[in-house]
C-alpha cells in the first residue's frame, strides 16, 4: 500500500505546511536518535546509595505483591526455592531458563527438585528465570528474550521465580536502556514486570492471576541474609 504511505506522509507535510525535512534538519534529528538523551529523572532512586537502592526496590516490589527472599549466595538458591515451593504447596517441578547463569546454581544439592531446561509448555507450574536488571524506582524487573531466556517462561506458568543479583538493581528505567544498548542489539522482547498478573475489570476489585503468573517470587542474591 505505497499509495497509503505517500498519501499519509504527504498529508502530514501539507498539514505542517512544509515539504520533507531538509537534509540538515533530518541529520540533526537522526543524530539525536542515535544518542538518546535522558529526560527528567525522579530523585526517588537517584539519591540513594547501593544499599538504599536495593531496599527501595524490595519495598516497591513487595507493595505490589511480589515476594522477595534475600539470600547470601548462589549456593543458597536451591534451598530457598525448595522452601518457597513447600510454603506455597507447589510441586517441586521447575522449568528453568537454559541460561549459564542459572546452571551455576548447585541444583543437584536438592535432588527432590525436578528440573527441565527450555521454554514453558502448557501445564508447567513453576518457572525459574534470570533477569536482565531490576528497577528500584517502581520495584520492576527487566527481562529480555533470547535463546537462553524464552519469554513464555515469564507468562505461562502460575508461579514465576526470578533469580536476581543485587548488583543488577538499577535506579531507573533509563539506566536499564543504557545497559541494554551497551550489551548489543534490541532483543525481540523486553518485559518490564511489576508484580504478579492482576485485573480490576470486575467492579474494580483487584484480583491477582488474571492471565499471567499468580505469584511472582524473587530470590535476591546479595551477599546478605535477610
Amino acid at each position, binding site marked *: *500500500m505505497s499509495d*497509503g504511505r505517500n*498519501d*499519509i*506522509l504527504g*498529508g*502530514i507535510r501539507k*498539514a*505542517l505546511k512544509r515539504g520533507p525535512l531538509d537534509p540538515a534538519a*533530518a541529520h540533526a*534529528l*537522526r543524530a539525536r*536518535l542515535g544518542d*538518546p538523551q*535522558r*529526560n*527528567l529523572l*525522579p530523585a*526517588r532512586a537517584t539519591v540513594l546509595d547501593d544499599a538504599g537502592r536495593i531496599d527501595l526496590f524490595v519495598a*516497591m516490589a513487595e*507493595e*505490589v505483591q511480589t515476594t522477595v527472599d534475600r539470600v547470601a549466595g548462589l549456593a543458597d538458591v536451591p534451598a530457598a526455592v525448595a522452601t518457597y515451593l513447600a510454603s506455597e504447596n507447589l510441586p517441586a517441578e521447575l522449568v528453568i531458563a537454559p541460561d549459564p547463569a542459572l546452571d551455576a546454581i548447585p541444583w543437584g544439592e536438592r535432588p527432590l527438585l525436578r528440573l527441565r531446561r*527450555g*521454554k514453558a509448555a*502448557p501445564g508447567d507450574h513453576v518457572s525459574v528465570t534470570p533477569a536482565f536488571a531490576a528497577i528500584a524506582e517502581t*520495584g*520492576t524487573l527487566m527481562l529480555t*528474550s*533470547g*535463546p537462553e531466556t*524464552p*519469554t*513464555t517462561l*515469564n*507468562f505461562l506458568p502460575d508461579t514465576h521465580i526470578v533469580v536476581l543479583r543485587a548488583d543488577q538493581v538499577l535506579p531507573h528505567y*533509563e539506566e536499564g*536502556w543504557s545497559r541494554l544498548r551497551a550489551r548489543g542489539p*534490541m*532483543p*525481540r*522482547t*523486553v*518485559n*518490564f514486570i*511489576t*508484580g*504478579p*498478573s492482576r*485485573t*480490576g*475489570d*470486575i*467492579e*474494580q*476489585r483487584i*484480583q491477582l492471576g*488474571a*492471565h*499471567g*503468573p499468580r505469584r511472582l517470587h524473587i530470590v535476591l542474591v546479595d551477599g546478605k541474609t535477610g
Partner: protein
Amino acid sequence: MDATSHAFKSNAREALANPTLQTALGMAKTGFPLKRLAAIERLPEFEALREEGKRIKNHTLAHLDFYLEEFERNVVELGGQVHWCRTPHEARETILAICRSVDAKTVTKGKSMIAEEIALNDFLEANAIAPIETDLGEYIIQLRHEPPSHIIAPAIHLLKEQVADAFRAAHTDLDPARNLEEPRTLTDEARQILRPKFLAADVGITGANFLIAETGSSIIVTNEGNGDLTQILPKIHIALASLEKVVPTLEDAATILRLLARSATGQEFSTYTTVSTGPRRPGDLDGPQQFHVVLLDNGRSAMLGTEFQDMLRCIRCSACINHCPVYAAVGGHAYGWVYPGPMGSVLTPQLIGMEEAGNLPNASTFCGRCESVCPMKIPLPKMMRHWREREYEAKLSPATYRQGLALWAFFVQRPELYHRLAEIGMRVLGFFGRGRGRFRALPLAGGWTAVRDMPVPQGRSFHSLWAERQRKAAR
C-alpha cells in the same frame, strides 16, 4: 459499530434511569481519582514530568513524517513490516490479508481501542475468522455483544452478577450449579476458558501505547498479561496503532510511562510494560515468526496544524474520563461510539464527522477537571468550545438555539441596552416570584425549567450592586 452519538440526549436520559448502571457507576466514581491522587502525591516531579511529556509529544508531532519514516526503517531492518492505512477499511483489509496468509481460524486480541475504532471483530467474523478478546473486560463485553464503556475499563458499567450471567450463557460446558458469586471465581473461570485459546490462536493482535522511532519497537502496557500471551504464542504478531503513537526514543517513552499508569489507575507502574521489536531472532525458542505494524491515520494527520492538534498528544490514560461529572452520571455508552468522556467529545467528531457527533462537545459543564488532570496538558474544554463554534457555523445546532444565541449576541454587544433590559427583567421576575424563592416553570424557557428550577432574582443585578459599591467606596 453503528454510532448513536447524535442521540446523546436520549441515551443519557436512559442511562440516568437505569438503576443497575447507576449502581455500577457509583462504585466507579471515586476509585480511580483517589488512587491517582495518592500516586502523584508520592512523585514530587509529577508536574515537571507533565511538561516534559507535552514537550516530547509536541516535538514529535512537529516532525511526525520524519519519525514515522525512521520507525518504519527500523521495523523493516529487523524483518518486520509496516502497513500504512489511510482508513479503517484499509486497516481491516490489511489485517484480513495477513490472517489469510496463514489460513488463520482464530485470532487472539489484546485490548486495542483502534480495533474498536475500525470495528475489527465484526469484520473478521464476517470473514470466517474468530476474534477472541483476551482482556477480561473486553472478553466480558464481547460475550454480551456490546461496545466498551470506558477506554481502560471496558466493563466498568457492569455488576458482577451481570458478568456471571454472561459466563453461564457462554460457558455451557461447565457445571451450571457452579458458584460465580465473586470476582475471584469469575476471573479464574475466564483464565481457564481463555488459556487454550491463547495456545491455539494463529494470529495475535495487540494495540500499542507507543511506537519507538529509534528502535522500531511497539510497546504495550497491561496488567493481566493477556497482551503478552497474545503476542508471544501465535505465529504472527500484529500491532495495530494510530500514527500519533510514535515517540523518538526509549527514554522519551520512559518519561511518558511515568505519567501513564499513575494518571490511569493510580499504579506506580502497570504490571506489564512490554517492548516488542521485530519477529523472533535466530536461536529464540519462542516468539512470533512475523511482526506487522498496521499504522492507521483515519483523519489524524488532518488534525495537525488545526486547533485540534493538541489532541494528538493524548496517551489514552482515561484520567479525563475518570474525573468528568457528565461521564460519572451517564457512563460511556451514552456517548454512542468508541471514545467516551471529554477526550471522546473532542476526538469523535473528527473521526466520524460532525453530523453524527457534533453535539458531544455540548455534553460538558466546562468545569475544567479534565484539563487539570490530563497528563499531557491537553486543553480539552477549549477544544470542545472550538467544536461548538464549528457546529454553530455549520448550522447543525437547533434553530431556536442559534436564534437565541444571535439575539443574545445583539444585546451583549450593546452593554448599555443589555444592562437596562436585564435590570427590567430582574425586577419583573423578582416581582412575580416574590415569596416563592424559585420558578418551577417559565414562559419561553420550558426546556430549561423542565429539569431545573430558576431561582427568583433578588431584584437588582450584580452590575448595579457593584456600581453602587464602587460609588460608596469612592466617597
